[in-house]
Protein backbone atom coordinates (compact mmCIF):
# COMPACT_ATOMS: atom_id res chain seq x y z
CA UNK A 1 0.00 0.00 0.00
CA UNK A 2 1.12 3.54 -0.70
CA UNK A 3 -0.76 4.81 2.34
CA UNK A 4 -2.26 2.72 5.11
CA UNK A 5 -3.84 4.04 8.33
CA UNK A 6 -5.00 1.63 11.07
CA UNK A 7 -6.88 2.64 14.20
CA UNK A 8 -5.60 6.20 14.09
CA UNK A 9 -6.90 8.54 16.78
CA UNK A 10 -5.78 12.11 16.81
CA UNK A 11 -6.74 14.99 19.05
CA UNK A 12 -5.09 18.25 19.99
CA UNK A 13 -3.17 18.22 23.22
CA UNK A 14 -5.16 21.17 24.57
CA UNK A 15 -8.53 19.48 23.90
CA UNK A 16 -8.05 15.75 24.45
CA UNK A 17 -11.81 15.03 24.63
CA UNK A 18 -12.56 16.27 21.14
CA UNK A 19 -11.21 13.88 18.51
CA UNK A 20 -10.03 15.63 15.38
CA UNK A 21 -9.50 12.49 13.39
CA UNK A 22 -10.53 8.87 13.94
CA UNK A 23 -9.61 6.49 11.17
CA UNK A 24 -10.36 2.78 11.78
CA UNK A 25 -8.84 1.77 8.43
CA UNK A 26 -7.92 3.65 5.25
CA UNK A 27 -5.57 2.80 2.44
CA UNK A 28 -4.41 4.07 -0.95
CA UNK A 29 -2.87 1.69 -3.47
CA UNK A 30 0.37 2.63 -5.27
CA UNK A 31 -0.26 4.65 -8.43
CA UNK A 32 -3.80 5.56 -7.36
CA UNK A 33 -5.07 9.10 -7.64
CA UNK A 34 -7.37 9.82 -4.75
CA UNK A 35 -9.54 12.89 -4.38
CA UNK A 36 -10.56 13.56 -0.77
CA UNK A 37 -13.13 16.24 -0.13
CA UNK A 38 -14.67 17.73 2.97
CA UNK A 39 -15.56 21.08 4.45
CA UNK A 40 -12.78 23.18 5.95
CA UNK A 41 -12.04 22.38 9.56
CA UNK A 42 -13.03 18.77 9.06
CA UNK A 43 -9.55 17.43 9.71
CA UNK A 44 -8.16 17.41 6.16
CA UNK A 45 -4.99 19.20 7.21
CA UNK A 46 -4.55 16.85 10.11
CA UNK A 47 -4.86 13.83 7.83
CA UNK A 48 -2.25 15.28 5.45
CA UNK A 49 0.09 16.23 8.30
CA UNK A 50 -0.10 12.70 9.67
CA UNK A 51 0.58 11.13 6.27
CA UNK A 52 3.46 13.51 5.59
CA UNK A 53 4.92 12.94 9.04
CA UNK A 54 4.71 16.55 10.19
CA UNK A 55 2.51 15.45 13.04
CA UNK A 56 3.40 12.64 15.34
CA UNK A 57 0.73 9.94 15.43
CA UNK A 58 -0.12 9.35 19.09
CA UNK A 59 -2.34 6.32 18.57
CA UNK A 60 -2.61 3.85 15.72
CA UNK A 61 -0.49 2.93 12.74
CA UNK A 62 0.49 5.21 9.87
CA UNK A 63 2.34 3.47 7.01
CA UNK A 64 3.51 5.36 3.95
CA UNK A 65 5.21 3.47 1.09
CA UNK A 66 5.55 0.53 3.44
CA UNK A 67 7.32 2.49 6.20
CA UNK A 68 5.82 2.89 9.66
CA UNK A 69 5.79 6.67 10.31
CA UNK A 70 4.33 6.18 13.80
CA UNK A 71 7.49 4.31 14.81
CA UNK A 72 9.86 6.98 13.55
CA UNK A 73 11.18 9.95 15.50
CA UNK A 74 10.78 13.48 14.21
CA UNK A 75 14.10 13.57 12.43
CA UNK A 76 13.46 10.29 10.64
CA UNK A 77 9.99 11.48 9.58
CA UNK A 78 11.52 14.74 8.26
CA UNK A 79 14.04 12.77 6.25
CA UNK A 80 11.40 10.39 4.94
CA UNK A 81 9.14 13.25 3.89
CA UNK A 82 11.92 15.07 2.04
CA UNK A 83 12.96 12.00 0.12
CA UNK A 84 9.60 10.38 -0.66
CA UNK A 85 6.79 12.94 -0.53
CA UNK A 86 6.14 15.93 -2.73
CA UNK A 87 3.82 18.62 -1.43
CA UNK A 88 1.80 21.32 -3.18
CA UNK A 89 -0.25 23.80 -1.15
CA UNK A 90 -3.09 26.13 -1.96
CA UNK A 91 -0.80 29.13 -1.66
CA UNK A 92 2.49 29.96 -0.10
CA UNK A 93 4.32 27.17 -1.83
CA UNK A 94 7.43 29.24 -2.30
CA UNK A 95 9.69 31.42 -0.21
CA UNK A 96 8.66 34.84 -1.55
CA UNK A 97 12.07 36.52 -1.40
CA UNK A 98 13.88 33.71 -3.25
CA UNK A 99 13.67 33.17 -7.01
CA UNK A 100 12.26 29.93 -8.52
CA UNK A 101 15.69 28.35 -9.00
CA UNK A 102 16.65 29.05 -5.39
CA UNK A 103 13.33 27.70 -4.15
CA UNK A 104 13.87 24.45 -5.96
CA UNK A 105 17.48 24.23 -4.80
CA UNK A 106 16.34 24.85 -1.24
CA UNK A 107 13.95 21.91 -1.43
CA UNK A 108 16.73 19.78 -2.83
CA UNK A 109 19.26 20.87 -0.24
CA UNK A 110 17.39 19.13 2.58
CA UNK A 111 17.27 15.87 0.65
CA UNK A 112 19.67 13.00 1.13
CA UNK A 113 19.18 11.91 -2.45
CA UNK A 114 21.85 13.43 -4.65
CA UNK A 115 20.43 12.46 -8.04
CA UNK A 116 22.23 15.08 -9.95
CA UNK A 117 25.47 16.81 -9.15
CA UNK A 118 24.32 20.15 -10.50
CA UNK A 119 21.08 21.14 -8.82
CA UNK A 120 20.82 24.41 -10.79
CA UNK A 121 20.67 22.39 -14.01
CA UNK A 122 18.02 20.09 -12.51
CA UNK A 123 15.97 23.08 -11.44
CA UNK A 124 16.25 24.70 -14.85
CA UNK A 125 15.26 21.62 -16.79
CA UNK A 126 12.32 21.07 -14.44
CA UNK A 127 11.14 24.64 -14.90
CA UNK A 128 11.59 24.32 -18.65
CA UNK A 129 9.53 21.16 -18.80
CA UNK A 130 6.78 22.91 -16.81
CA UNK A 131 6.67 25.86 -19.21
CA UNK A 132 7.96 28.44 -16.76
CA UNK A 133 9.58 31.03 -19.01
CA UNK A 134 13.27 31.67 -18.38
CA UNK A 135 12.64 35.37 -17.69
CA UNK A 136 10.92 34.39 -14.43
CA UNK A 137 13.68 32.11 -13.17
CA UNK A 138 15.70 34.74 -11.42
CA UNK A 139 12.95 36.99 -10.11
CA UNK A 140 11.63 36.77 -6.56
CA UNK A 141 8.67 34.42 -6.64
CA UNK A 142 6.46 37.07 -5.03
CA UNK A 143 6.58 38.86 -8.41
CA UNK A 144 5.29 35.88 -10.39
CA UNK A 145 1.68 35.32 -11.38
CA UNK A 146 -0.36 32.82 -9.40
CA UNK A 147 -0.31 30.35 -12.32
CA UNK A 148 3.46 30.62 -12.62
CA UNK A 149 3.87 30.22 -8.88
CA UNK A 150 1.85 27.02 -8.87
CA UNK A 151 3.91 25.57 -11.72
CA UNK A 152 7.12 26.44 -9.87
CA UNK A 153 5.53 24.77 -6.85
CA UNK A 154 5.06 21.55 -8.82
CA UNK A 155 8.68 21.72 -9.97
CA UNK A 156 9.73 22.19 -6.37
CA UNK A 157 7.56 19.26 -5.24
CA UNK A 158 9.04 16.99 -7.92
CA UNK A 159 12.70 17.86 -7.55
CA UNK A 160 13.45 15.05 -5.13
CA UNK A 161 11.53 12.50 -7.29
CA UNK A 162 8.92 11.60 -4.70
CA UNK A 163 6.80 8.44 -4.92
CA UNK A 164 3.84 10.17 -3.26
CA UNK A 165 2.51 13.59 -4.18
CA UNK A 166 0.22 15.40 -1.75
CA UNK A 167 -1.81 18.31 -3.10
CA UNK A 168 -3.59 20.43 -0.48
CA UNK A 169 -6.23 22.58 -2.23
CA UNK A 170 -3.68 23.51 -4.90
CA UNK A 171 -6.21 25.08 -7.26
CA UNK A 172 -8.34 27.29 -5.03
CA UNK A 173 -6.16 30.34 -5.65
CA UNK A 174 -6.37 29.89 -9.43
CA UNK A 175 -8.95 31.04 -11.96
CA UNK A 176 -10.89 28.59 -14.13
CA UNK A 177 -8.42 28.49 -17.02
CA UNK A 178 -5.32 28.23 -14.87
CA UNK A 179 -7.01 25.61 -12.75
CA UNK A 180 -7.69 23.34 -15.72
CA UNK A 181 -4.16 23.82 -17.06
CA UNK A 182 -2.72 23.13 -13.65
CA UNK A 183 -4.72 19.96 -13.13
CA UNK A 184 -3.96 18.43 -16.53
CA UNK A 185 -0.27 19.25 -16.05
CA UNK A 186 -0.27 17.73 -12.58
CA UNK A 187 -2.09 14.58 -13.67
CA UNK A 188 0.14 14.01 -16.67
CA UNK A 189 3.24 14.39 -14.50
CA UNK A 190 1.83 11.97 -11.94
CA UNK A 191 1.18 9.45 -14.71
CA UNK A 192 4.59 10.03 -16.26
CA UNK A 193 6.49 9.52 -12.99
CA UNK A 194 4.13 6.76 -11.77
CA UNK A 195 3.44 8.61 -8.54
CA UNK A 196 0.63 8.10 -6.10
CA UNK A 197 -1.49 11.26 -5.77
CA UNK A 198 -3.42 12.33 -2.71
CA UNK A 199 -5.47 15.36 -3.68
CA UNK A 200 -7.47 17.22 -1.06
CA UNK A 201 -10.01 19.86 -1.96
CA UNK A 202 -13.49 21.10 -1.17
CA UNK A 203 -14.09 21.93 -4.84
CA UNK A 204 -16.42 19.18 -6.10
CA UNK A 205 -16.06 20.41 -9.67
CA UNK A 206 -12.66 18.75 -9.74
CA UNK A 207 -14.00 15.25 -9.11
CA UNK A 208 -14.34 14.74 -12.89
CA UNK A 209 -10.55 14.37 -13.11
CA UNK A 210 -10.34 11.56 -10.55
CA UNK A 211 -11.35 7.93 -10.56
CA UNK A 212 -11.37 7.60 -6.76
CA UNK A 213 -13.37 10.20 -4.89
CA UNK A 214 -13.78 9.91 -1.14
CA UNK A 215 -15.46 12.10 1.43
CA UNK A 216 -13.41 12.71 4.53
CA UNK A 217 -16.48 11.77 6.57
CA UNK A 218 -16.22 8.26 5.11
CA UNK A 219 -12.58 7.99 6.15
CA UNK A 220 -12.78 9.54 9.57
CA UNK A 221 -15.45 8.82 12.15
CA UNK A 222 -14.74 12.01 14.04
CA UNK A 223 -16.32 14.23 11.43
Amino acid at each position, binding site marked *: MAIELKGVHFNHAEAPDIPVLQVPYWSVKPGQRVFVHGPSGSGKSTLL*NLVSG*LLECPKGEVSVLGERLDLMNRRQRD*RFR*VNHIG*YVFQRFNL*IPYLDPIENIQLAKSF*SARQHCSNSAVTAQSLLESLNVEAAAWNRPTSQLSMGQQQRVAIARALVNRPELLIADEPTSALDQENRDNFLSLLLSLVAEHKMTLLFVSHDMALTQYFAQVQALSDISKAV
Partner: protein
Amino acid sequence: MTLASIGVAIFVLLGMEHIRTQARDSFASTVSGADLIVGAKTGSLNLLLYSVFRLGAPTDNISWESYQAIAADDNVAWTIPISLGDSHRGYRVLGTTPAYFEHFSYGKKRNLVFSDGAEFKNTFDVVLGSEVARALEYPLGEEMILAHGIVSTNFSRHDNKPFHVVGILAPTGTPVDQTIHVQLQGIEAMHDNLVPESITAFMLGLKSRMATFTVQRQINDFVTEPLLAILPGVALSELWQMVGMFENVLRLISVLVLVAAVLGLSAVLLASVRERNHEIHLLRVLGAPPYYLFFLIELEALLISVSGMLLGVLSLYLCLLFVEDALFANFGLQLSPSVFTKEGFVIMLLVLTAALVAAAIPSMKVYFQAKTYTDH
Protein backbone atom coordinates in the same frame (compact mmCIF):
# COMPACT_ATOMS: atom_id res chain seq x y z
CA MET B 1 12.46 51.29 12.83
CA THR B 2 14.44 48.56 14.55
CA LEU B 3 17.31 49.33 12.26
CA ALA B 4 17.17 52.99 13.20
CA SER B 5 16.95 52.35 16.93
CA ILE B 6 19.96 50.07 16.84
CA GLY B 7 21.70 52.69 14.75
CA VAL B 8 20.92 55.34 17.36
CA ALA B 9 22.13 53.12 20.18
CA ILE B 10 25.38 52.44 18.39
CA PHE B 11 25.71 56.10 17.57
CA VAL B 12 25.32 57.13 21.20
CA LEU B 13 27.52 54.37 22.62
CA LEU B 14 30.34 54.77 20.16
CA GLY B 15 30.08 58.53 20.11
CA MET B 16 30.27 58.70 23.90
CA GLU B 17 33.23 56.40 24.07
CA HIS B 18 34.94 58.16 21.23
CA ILE B 19 34.53 61.67 22.61
CA ARG B 20 35.52 60.47 26.05
CA THR B 21 38.78 58.87 24.97
CA GLN B 22 39.58 61.59 22.52
CA ALA B 23 38.90 64.30 25.09
CA ARG B 24 41.20 62.55 27.51
CA ASP B 25 43.90 62.17 24.93
CA SER B 26 43.44 65.73 23.87
CA PHE B 27 43.62 67.04 27.43
CA ALA B 28 46.47 64.79 28.40
CA SER B 29 48.46 65.76 25.34
CA THR B 30 48.11 69.47 26.04
CA VAL B 31 51.02 69.59 28.40
CA SER B 32 53.66 66.92 28.47
CA GLY B 33 57.01 68.51 29.18
CA ALA B 34 56.40 70.40 32.40
CA ASP B 35 57.15 68.67 35.69
CA LEU B 36 55.32 71.21 37.80
CA ILE B 37 52.89 74.05 37.28
CA VAL B 38 53.10 76.85 39.82
CA GLY B 39 50.50 79.48 40.59
CA ALA B 40 48.92 81.37 43.43
CA LYS B 41 47.35 79.27 46.17
CA THR B 42 44.07 77.92 44.80
CA GLY B 43 42.54 74.57 43.93
CA SER B 44 44.89 72.40 41.92
CA LEU B 45 42.21 71.82 39.28
CA ASN B 46 41.59 75.52 38.99
CA LEU B 47 45.29 76.18 38.52
CA LEU B 48 45.51 73.48 35.86
CA LEU B 49 42.47 74.78 34.00
CA TYR B 50 43.47 78.40 33.84
CA SER B 51 47.19 77.92 33.25
CA VAL B 52 47.06 75.18 30.64
CA PHE B 53 43.57 75.25 29.16
CA ARG B 54 42.93 78.99 29.52
CA LEU B 55 39.63 78.11 31.16
CA GLY B 56 38.30 80.13 34.05
CA ALA B 57 40.02 83.08 35.65
CA PRO B 58 43.16 83.08 37.78
CA THR B 59 42.46 83.78 41.43
CA ASP B 60 45.60 85.74 42.02
CA ASN B 61 48.97 86.49 40.49
CA ILE B 62 52.37 85.58 41.81
CA SER B 63 55.03 88.18 42.24
CA TRP B 64 57.97 88.48 39.90
CA GLU B 65 60.33 88.13 42.86
CA SER B 66 58.89 84.79 43.92
CA TYR B 67 59.11 83.55 40.37
CA GLN B 68 62.72 84.64 40.12
CA ALA B 69 63.56 82.96 43.41
CA ILE B 70 62.12 79.61 42.37
CA ALA B 71 63.57 79.77 38.87
CA ALA B 72 67.00 80.21 40.44
CA ASP B 73 66.69 76.99 42.43
CA ASP B 74 69.41 74.43 41.71
CA ASN B 75 66.93 71.71 40.80
CA VAL B 76 65.11 73.80 38.24
CA ALA B 77 66.24 73.36 34.64
CA TRP B 78 63.92 75.80 32.96
CA THR B 79 60.78 77.83 33.56
CA ILE B 80 58.06 79.22 31.33
CA PRO B 81 56.30 82.21 32.86
CA ILE B 82 52.71 82.77 31.82
CA SER B 83 50.81 86.00 32.11
CA LEU B 84 47.16 85.85 31.15
CA GLY B 85 44.39 88.33 31.11
CA ASP B 86 44.04 90.29 27.91
CA SER B 87 42.47 89.37 24.66
CA HIS B 88 42.17 90.17 21.03
CA ARG B 89 38.86 89.48 19.24
CA GLY B 90 38.02 86.68 21.63
CA TYR B 91 41.42 85.00 21.64
CA ARG B 92 43.45 84.95 24.81
CA VAL B 93 46.68 86.90 24.89
CA LEU B 94 49.45 85.16 26.75
CA GLY B 95 52.58 86.90 27.90
CA THR B 96 55.63 84.69 28.13
CA THR B 97 59.31 84.51 27.26
CA PRO B 98 61.23 82.81 24.42
CA ALA B 99 61.60 79.86 26.83
CA TYR B 100 58.03 78.99 25.83
CA PHE B 101 59.07 78.07 22.31
CA GLU B 102 62.10 76.23 23.57
CA HIS B 103 60.63 74.15 26.39
CA PHE B 104 56.87 73.93 26.01
CA SER B 105 55.90 70.55 24.64
CA TYR B 106 52.66 68.73 23.94
CA GLY B 107 51.54 65.28 22.86
CA LYS B 108 54.42 62.86 22.88
CA LYS B 109 57.01 65.47 23.88
CA ARG B 110 56.68 67.43 20.68
CA ASN B 111 58.02 70.95 20.69
CA LEU B 112 56.29 73.91 19.13
CA VAL B 113 57.13 74.47 15.47
CA PHE B 114 56.74 77.64 13.46
CA SER B 115 54.84 77.30 10.22
CA ASP B 116 55.81 80.85 9.33
CA GLY B 117 58.14 83.48 10.76
CA ALA B 118 60.00 83.11 14.03
CA GLU B 119 59.70 83.78 17.75
CA PHE B 120 59.28 87.28 19.14
CA LYS B 121 62.25 89.52 19.88
CA ASN B 122 60.74 92.91 20.61
CA THR B 123 58.14 94.10 23.05
CA PHE B 124 55.55 94.62 20.35
CA ASP B 125 56.10 91.36 18.49
CA VAL B 126 53.30 88.78 18.39
CA VAL B 127 53.32 85.03 17.69
CA LEU B 128 49.93 83.60 16.70
CA GLY B 129 48.56 80.13 17.29
CA SER B 130 47.59 78.41 14.05
CA GLU B 131 43.84 78.69 14.67
CA VAL B 132 44.07 82.40 15.48
CA ALA B 133 46.01 83.05 12.29
CA ARG B 134 43.54 81.02 10.28
CA ALA B 135 40.39 82.52 11.75
CA LEU B 136 41.53 86.14 11.79
CA GLU B 137 43.45 85.82 8.53
CA TYR B 138 46.43 87.68 9.86
CA PRO B 139 49.56 87.33 7.74
CA LEU B 140 53.07 88.04 8.96
CA GLY B 141 53.64 91.73 9.56
CA GLU B 142 49.96 92.45 10.27
CA GLU B 143 49.38 95.21 12.78
CA MET B 144 47.01 94.44 15.60
CA ILE B 145 45.62 96.16 18.66
CA LEU B 146 45.50 94.22 21.93
CA ALA B 147 42.87 94.99 24.53
CA HIS B 148 41.92 94.29 28.13
CA GLY B 149 39.55 91.51 29.06
CA ILE B 150 38.69 88.60 26.86
CA VAL B 151 35.66 90.08 25.10
CA SER B 152 36.53 91.43 21.70
CA THR B 153 34.03 94.27 21.89
CA ASN B 154 35.41 95.50 25.17
CA PHE B 155 35.45 99.29 25.20
CA SER B 156 38.66 99.84 27.14
CA ARG B 157 40.97 99.15 24.22
CA HIS B 158 44.57 100.18 24.13
CA ASP B 159 44.30 101.65 20.70
CA ASN B 160 47.59 103.42 20.90
CA LYS B 161 49.80 100.31 20.98
CA PRO B 162 49.95 98.41 17.67
CA PHE B 163 51.61 95.00 17.74
CA HIS B 164 53.19 93.20 14.77
CA VAL B 165 52.80 89.55 13.85
CA VAL B 166 56.26 88.00 13.57
CA GLY B 167 55.51 84.32 13.78
CA ILE B 168 52.73 81.76 13.26
CA LEU B 169 52.84 78.35 14.95
CA ALA B 170 52.01 75.07 13.28
CA PRO B 171 48.78 73.39 14.48
CA THR B 172 49.13 71.41 17.70
CA GLY B 173 45.58 70.38 18.56
CA THR B 174 45.93 72.09 21.94
CA PRO B 175 44.83 75.49 23.33
CA VAL B 176 48.15 76.87 22.02
CA ASP B 177 46.48 77.09 18.62
CA GLN B 178 44.04 79.63 20.00
CA THR B 179 46.49 81.75 21.84
CA ILE B 180 48.16 85.01 20.94
CA HIS B 181 51.66 85.02 22.35
CA VAL B 182 53.54 88.18 23.29
CA GLN B 183 56.53 88.95 25.44
CA LEU B 184 55.90 89.50 29.14
CA GLN B 185 57.00 93.06 28.59
CA GLY B 186 54.40 93.30 25.87
CA ILE B 187 51.59 92.61 28.34
CA GLU B 188 53.06 95.13 30.70
CA ALA B 189 53.52 97.61 27.88
CA MET B 190 49.78 97.65 27.33
CA HIS B 191 49.61 99.13 30.78
CA ASP B 192 52.48 101.55 30.25
CA ASN B 193 54.68 99.53 32.51
CA LEU B 194 57.79 98.00 31.06
CA VAL B 195 58.94 95.88 34.02
CA PRO B 196 56.71 92.90 34.88
CA GLU B 197 55.56 93.03 38.50
CA SER B 198 53.73 89.76 38.53
CA ILE B 199 52.81 86.77 36.38
CA THR B 200 49.81 84.46 36.41
CA ALA B 201 51.63 81.18 36.69
CA PHE B 202 54.62 79.32 35.39
CA MET B 203 55.59 75.87 34.26
CA LEU B 204 58.89 74.44 35.27
CA GLY B 205 61.09 71.60 34.20
CA LEU B 206 63.48 69.93 36.62
CA LYS B 207 67.00 68.72 36.05
CA SER B 208 66.01 65.42 37.57
CA ARG B 209 62.54 63.97 38.02
CA MET B 210 63.69 62.65 41.39
CA ALA B 211 63.48 66.17 42.79
CA THR B 212 59.83 66.64 41.84
CA PHE B 213 58.33 66.20 45.29
CA THR B 214 61.11 68.09 47.03
CA VAL B 215 60.62 71.10 44.82
CA GLN B 216 56.86 70.81 45.05
CA ARG B 217 57.04 70.88 48.83
CA GLN B 218 59.45 73.81 48.81
CA ILE B 219 57.09 75.81 46.63
CA ASN B 220 54.00 74.88 48.63
CA ASP B 221 55.84 75.99 51.81
CA PHE B 222 57.06 79.20 50.23
CA VAL B 223 57.19 81.81 52.99
CA THR B 224 56.87 85.21 51.34
CA GLU B 225 53.80 84.33 49.31
CA PRO B 226 51.21 81.50 49.33
CA LEU B 227 51.97 79.39 46.25
CA LEU B 228 50.78 76.11 44.83
CA ALA B 229 52.74 73.66 42.71
CA ILE B 230 50.93 70.83 40.97
CA LEU B 231 51.94 67.83 38.91
CA PRO B 232 49.96 68.13 35.67
CA GLY B 233 49.32 64.38 35.49
CA VAL B 234 47.96 64.20 39.02
CA ALA B 235 45.74 67.22 38.49
CA LEU B 236 44.43 65.70 35.26
CA SER B 237 43.48 62.47 36.97
CA GLU B 238 41.64 64.54 39.56
CA LEU B 239 39.77 66.12 36.70
CA TRP B 240 38.83 62.69 35.33
CA GLN B 241 37.54 61.63 38.70
CA MET B 242 35.21 64.59 38.68
CA VAL B 243 34.08 63.98 35.12
CA GLY B 244 33.80 60.25 35.79
CA MET B 245 30.42 60.48 37.51
CA PHE B 246 28.97 62.37 34.60
CA GLU B 247 30.43 59.87 32.18
CA ASN B 248 28.89 56.99 34.04
CA VAL B 249 25.46 58.57 33.84
CA LEU B 250 25.87 59.05 30.11
CA ARG B 251 27.05 55.51 29.71
CA LEU B 252 24.09 54.21 31.66
CA ILE B 253 21.76 56.16 29.40
CA SER B 254 23.32 54.76 26.28
CA VAL B 255 23.18 51.25 27.66
CA LEU B 256 19.47 51.77 28.33
CA VAL B 257 19.02 53.00 24.77
CA LEU B 258 20.73 49.85 23.61
CA VAL B 259 18.56 47.61 25.77
CA ALA B 260 15.46 49.31 24.37
CA ALA B 261 16.72 48.85 20.82
CA VAL B 262 17.54 45.21 21.34
CA LEU B 263 14.18 44.50 22.98
CA GLY B 264 12.56 46.30 20.06
CA LEU B 265 14.39 43.99 17.71
CA SER B 266 13.12 40.99 19.63
CA ALA B 267 9.54 42.31 19.55
CA VAL B 268 9.67 43.03 15.82
CA LEU B 269 11.01 39.55 15.11
CA LEU B 270 8.31 38.00 17.28
CA ALA B 271 5.66 39.84 15.29
CA SER B 272 7.23 38.85 12.00
CA VAL B 273 7.45 35.24 13.10
CA ARG B 274 3.74 35.31 13.82
CA GLU B 275 3.07 36.64 10.33
CA ARG B 276 5.34 34.09 8.74
CA ASN B 277 3.58 30.97 9.92
CA HIS B 278 3.18 29.85 6.31
CA GLU B 279 6.84 30.24 5.56
CA ILE B 280 7.79 28.25 8.63
CA HIS B 281 5.27 25.57 7.73
CA LEU B 282 6.62 25.40 4.19
CA LEU B 283 10.21 25.09 5.40
CA ARG B 284 9.16 22.29 7.74
CA VAL B 285 7.43 20.45 4.89
CA LEU B 286 10.56 20.87 2.79
CA GLY B 287 12.38 19.09 5.59
CA ALA B 288 14.10 21.99 7.33
CA PRO B 289 14.91 20.80 10.84
CA PRO B 290 13.81 23.01 13.77
CA TYR B 291 17.36 24.21 14.48
CA TYR B 292 17.54 25.46 10.88
CA LEU B 293 14.55 27.70 11.59
CA PHE B 294 16.17 28.84 14.83
CA PHE B 295 19.27 29.96 12.98
CA LEU B 296 17.20 31.50 10.22
CA ILE B 297 15.64 33.94 12.70
CA GLU B 298 18.98 34.53 14.42
CA LEU B 299 20.53 35.25 11.05
CA GLU B 300 17.83 37.78 10.39
CA ALA B 301 18.57 39.44 13.72
CA LEU B 302 22.23 39.46 12.80
CA LEU B 303 21.53 41.13 9.45
CA ILE B 304 19.31 43.76 11.04
CA SER B 305 21.78 44.58 13.78
CA VAL B 306 24.77 44.67 11.47
CA SER B 307 22.97 47.06 9.13
CA GLY B 308 21.88 49.09 12.15
CA MET B 309 25.47 49.25 13.27
CA LEU B 310 26.68 50.34 9.87
CA LEU B 311 24.02 53.03 9.92
CA GLY B 312 25.12 54.18 13.37
CA VAL B 313 28.82 54.14 12.59
CA LEU B 314 28.29 55.94 9.32
CA SER B 315 26.16 58.68 10.81
CA LEU B 316 28.59 59.06 13.70
CA TYR B 317 31.43 59.40 11.25
CA LEU B 318 29.58 62.03 9.26
CA CYS B 319 28.61 63.85 12.45
CA LEU B 320 32.18 63.90 13.68
CA LEU B 321 33.38 65.23 10.36
CA PHE B 322 30.77 67.93 10.65
CA VAL B 323 31.37 69.02 14.24
CA GLU B 324 35.12 68.51 14.18
CA ASP B 325 35.95 72.12 13.41
CA ALA B 326 33.34 73.57 15.73
CA LEU B 327 34.52 71.45 18.66
CA PHE B 328 38.08 72.38 18.04
CA ALA B 329 37.42 76.07 17.69
CA ASN B 330 35.21 76.25 20.77
CA PHE B 331 36.76 73.77 23.15
CA GLY B 332 40.20 73.13 21.72
CA LEU B 333 39.09 69.53 21.53
CA GLN B 334 40.52 67.65 18.63
CA LEU B 335 38.50 64.66 17.47
CA SER B 336 39.60 62.33 14.78
CA PRO B 337 36.59 61.01 12.87
CA SER B 338 37.95 57.49 12.80
CA VAL B 339 35.63 55.63 15.13
CA PHE B 340 37.20 52.22 14.64
CA THR B 341 39.13 51.90 17.84
CA LYS B 342 39.64 48.81 19.93
CA GLU B 343 36.96 50.00 22.35
CA GLY B 344 34.64 50.62 19.42
CA PHE B 345 35.00 47.04 18.30
CA VAL B 346 34.41 45.74 21.79
CA ILE B 347 31.24 47.82 22.00
CA MET B 348 29.99 46.60 18.63
CA LEU B 349 30.74 43.04 19.59
CA LEU B 350 28.75 43.51 22.79
CA VAL B 351 25.83 45.00 20.88
CA LEU B 352 25.89 42.10 18.46
CA THR B 353 25.88 39.61 21.31
CA ALA B 354 23.02 41.45 22.99
CA ALA B 355 21.04 41.44 19.74
CA LEU B 356 21.58 37.71 19.24
CA VAL B 357 20.61 36.94 22.81
CA ALA B 358 17.44 39.02 22.48
CA ALA B 359 16.64 37.39 19.13
CA ALA B 360 16.86 34.01 20.84
CA ILE B 361 13.33 34.62 22.16
CA PRO B 362 11.59 34.64 18.76
CA SER B 363 14.04 32.04 17.50
CA MET B 364 13.14 29.69 20.33
CA LYS B 365 9.48 30.32 19.67
CA VAL B 366 9.95 29.23 16.06
CA TYR B 367 12.08 26.32 17.16
CA PHE B 368 9.42 24.93 19.47
CA GLN B 369 6.66 25.70 17.04
CA ALA B 370 8.54 23.66 14.46
CA LYS B 371 9.30 20.87 16.88
CA THR B 372 5.83 20.29 18.27
CA TYR B 373 4.17 21.03 15.00
CA THR B 374 0.52 21.96 15.28
CA ASP B 375 -1.96 23.11 12.69
CA HIS B 376 -1.70 26.73 11.77
